């Protein structure tokens, strides 16, 4: 198609009186929006190529650049919005599936913003975390049904053999971001931040680069349907193994790493040819039932001598609660639930925006179901999908999650501007790319520091919120839904969340 009907999404404006023609913008834009003309000593811009990542704006030393939404609009229409029309134009021009990156950006209700927390007033004292100890340490893994202790000569000894546990400084982990989807520097930053801070990161389905084995004790290694990079040393390198059944951004379909991102190193790590698309199948072809899942869980446990907890990750879908019950019975030590706002490096837009359920409802229904069946202690619940702040984390814990996976928040901490073009491999911030020109833009030392700062900040805030509620340990908040109240929710939403409306 020679001529496109699609108007630019953004307008790039240059305040000429401030432009010094230093061409930093020219050099920093991988989409070639800016070009320098030597004859007229002028920098020109082509707005149609702009993806809105703001790299040029951030790097411009004189603040000469402004990138804003293109004010040109289609005739107002509540049904046929500009977004809808543009998508049809795109498909009419390409005949292809619309691709996107990052999490669902449609205006579905965000239940976190409809839940408020409690605080102590008069009748019970609040706690000042700066003056009194506050425990956020979290253990993930199967807990015993009961404890046997023996007392010999006044000394108490635990007789029950505990299942392997992951020990987290705060109930936050970095979610599965595969090497391939993100750059080596980004992977290294996540690994080293988790290692130094005392939490875990997840390899995603991209295997483990040989230089990252040293962070193994703080690594959750993933085993997904494509089995990319899965081998004996890989399974033994991690602290836990996660079987990925589904992903919140694309429930029901497999992973897709475009061949452009399969570089020499990615190919070695994933054990696939350079430049080949890494397409993982929609299902695991050896798992068509809970019984099959049990076989893989125990195969992995057997292979690692029952020394590592095994997690099973599913996308939050309509019958998550029943599936979760089956997963626990199949032997999963950790259940990871990924909600509809979960991110991705590449997914069909229509799947990302329309499939799955909000994580808040999934946490509540799964926790409730496992409690009712008396098996809640057999597995920890880790929630994922769009956690933006420490308040979201606290609310998730109160709803019944044991910990929270953060992916997008971690990427944003490293510099991601959510422009959603991860699938092109041209990330100007050096995060979602394998291009050697772009990869080095992410300094892993700076990124690690930023990630650790984010975790530290959330740690302080979680302590403040707990203290306000008069609680001095995160354990006391877990599943304590009396600390939540709903605002602006329907009766059935309140019922599913298991919380009272504010005022009652």
């Amino acid at each position, binding site marked *: 198609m020679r001529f496109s009907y699609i108007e630019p999404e953004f307008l790039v404006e240059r305040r000429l*009186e401030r432009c010094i023609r230093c061409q930093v913008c020219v*050099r920093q834009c991988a989409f070639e929006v800016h070009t320098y003309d030597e004859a007229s000593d002028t920098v020109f811009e082509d707005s149609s190529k702009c993806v809105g990542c703001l790299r040029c704006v951030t*790097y411009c*030393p*004189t603040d000469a650049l402004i990138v804003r939404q293109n004010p040109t609009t289609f005739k107002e229409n509540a049904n046929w919005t500009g977004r809808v029309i543009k998508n049809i134009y795109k498909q009419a021009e390409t005949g292809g599936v619309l691709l996107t990156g990052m999490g669902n950006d449609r205006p579905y209700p965000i239940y976190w913003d409809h839940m408020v927390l409690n605080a102590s007033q008069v009748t019970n004292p609040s706690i000042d975390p700066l003056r009194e100890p506050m425990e956020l340490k979290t253990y993930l893994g199967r807990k015993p049904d009961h404890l046997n202790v023996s007392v010999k000569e006044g000394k108490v000894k635990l007789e029950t053999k505990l299942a392997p546990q992951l020990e987290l400084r705060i109930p936050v982990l970095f979610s599965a971001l595969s090497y391939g989807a993100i750059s080596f520097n980004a992977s290294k930053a996540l690994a080293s931040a988790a290692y130094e801070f005392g939490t875990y990161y997840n390899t995603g389905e991209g295997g483990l680069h040989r230089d990252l084995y040293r962070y193994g004790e703080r690594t959750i290694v993933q085993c997904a349907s494509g089995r990319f990079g899965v081998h004996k040393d890989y399974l033994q390198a991690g602290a836990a193994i996660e079987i990925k059944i589904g992903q919140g951004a694309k429930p029901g379909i497999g992973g897709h790493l475009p061949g452009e991102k399969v570089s020499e190193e990615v190919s070695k790590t994933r054990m696939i040819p350079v430049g080949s698309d890494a397409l993982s199948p929609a299902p695991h072809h050896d798992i068509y039932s809970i019984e099959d899942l049990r076989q893989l869980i125990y195969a992995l446990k057997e292979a690692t001598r029952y020394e590592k907890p095994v997690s099973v990750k599913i996308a939050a879908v309509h019958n998550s609660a029943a599936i979760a019950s089956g997963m626990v019975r199949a032997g999963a030590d950790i259940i990871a639930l990924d909600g509809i706002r979960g991110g991705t490096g590449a997914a069909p837009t229509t799947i990302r925006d329309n499939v799955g359920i909000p994580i808040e409802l999934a946490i509540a229904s799964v926790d409730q179901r496992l409690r009712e069946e008396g098996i809640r202690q057999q597995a920890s619940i880790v929630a994922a999908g769009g956690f933006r702040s420490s308040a979201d984390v606290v609310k998730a814990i109160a709803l019944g999650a044991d910990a929270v996976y953060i992916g997008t928040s971690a990427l944003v901490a490293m510099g991601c501007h959510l422009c959603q073009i991860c699938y092109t491999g041209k990330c100007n911030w050096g995060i979602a790319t394998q291009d050697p*020109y772009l990869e080095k833009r992410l*300094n*892993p*030392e*700076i990124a690690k520091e930023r990630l650790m700062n984010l975790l530290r900040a959330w740690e302080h805030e979680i302590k403040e919120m707990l203290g306000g509620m008069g609680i001095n340990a995160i354990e006391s908040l877990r599943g304590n839904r009396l600390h939540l109240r709903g605002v602006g929710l329907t009766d059935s939403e309140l019922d599913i969340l298991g919380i009272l409306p504010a005022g009652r």
Partner: protein
Amino acid sequence: MMKRVYAKEEVCAGCRLCEVWCVVAHSQSKNIIKAFNEEFPRPLPRVKVEEFGPFSFALQCRHCQDPPCIEACMTGAMHREGLEGPVLHDADRCVGCWMCIMVCPYGAIARDETIKKIASKCDLCYGEEEPACVAHCPNEALVYEDRGE
């Protein structure tokens, strides 16, 4: 032993902001917009980003222990500040023979023909706590430290 600027090639984004801020630091006004849009002639950057494919790093005078440029300078324009200070260049005494450029093993001295023929090189922003290139590198690809060399 003295503090020197070191480049971390593996995280240099090739943006050349070091060059931009070097120009500002050596301008009359020290104002970035004035320095580029109003000052003529504009000072030359004393740091240069070398690029080859995806590899890039900022290069400036290494302030050698035994500087060949001082040896080669016939007027004494090129001199060392104290015993362990930076290698500086006095434009007033420079006659523009450019022997320093010929002998510099790093190619870190540039020809300056903006006013008269002289040499131009890094002065480590003498007197400042940190050179401008280091202070403004957005990816911390330049560091200013004493590595005991």
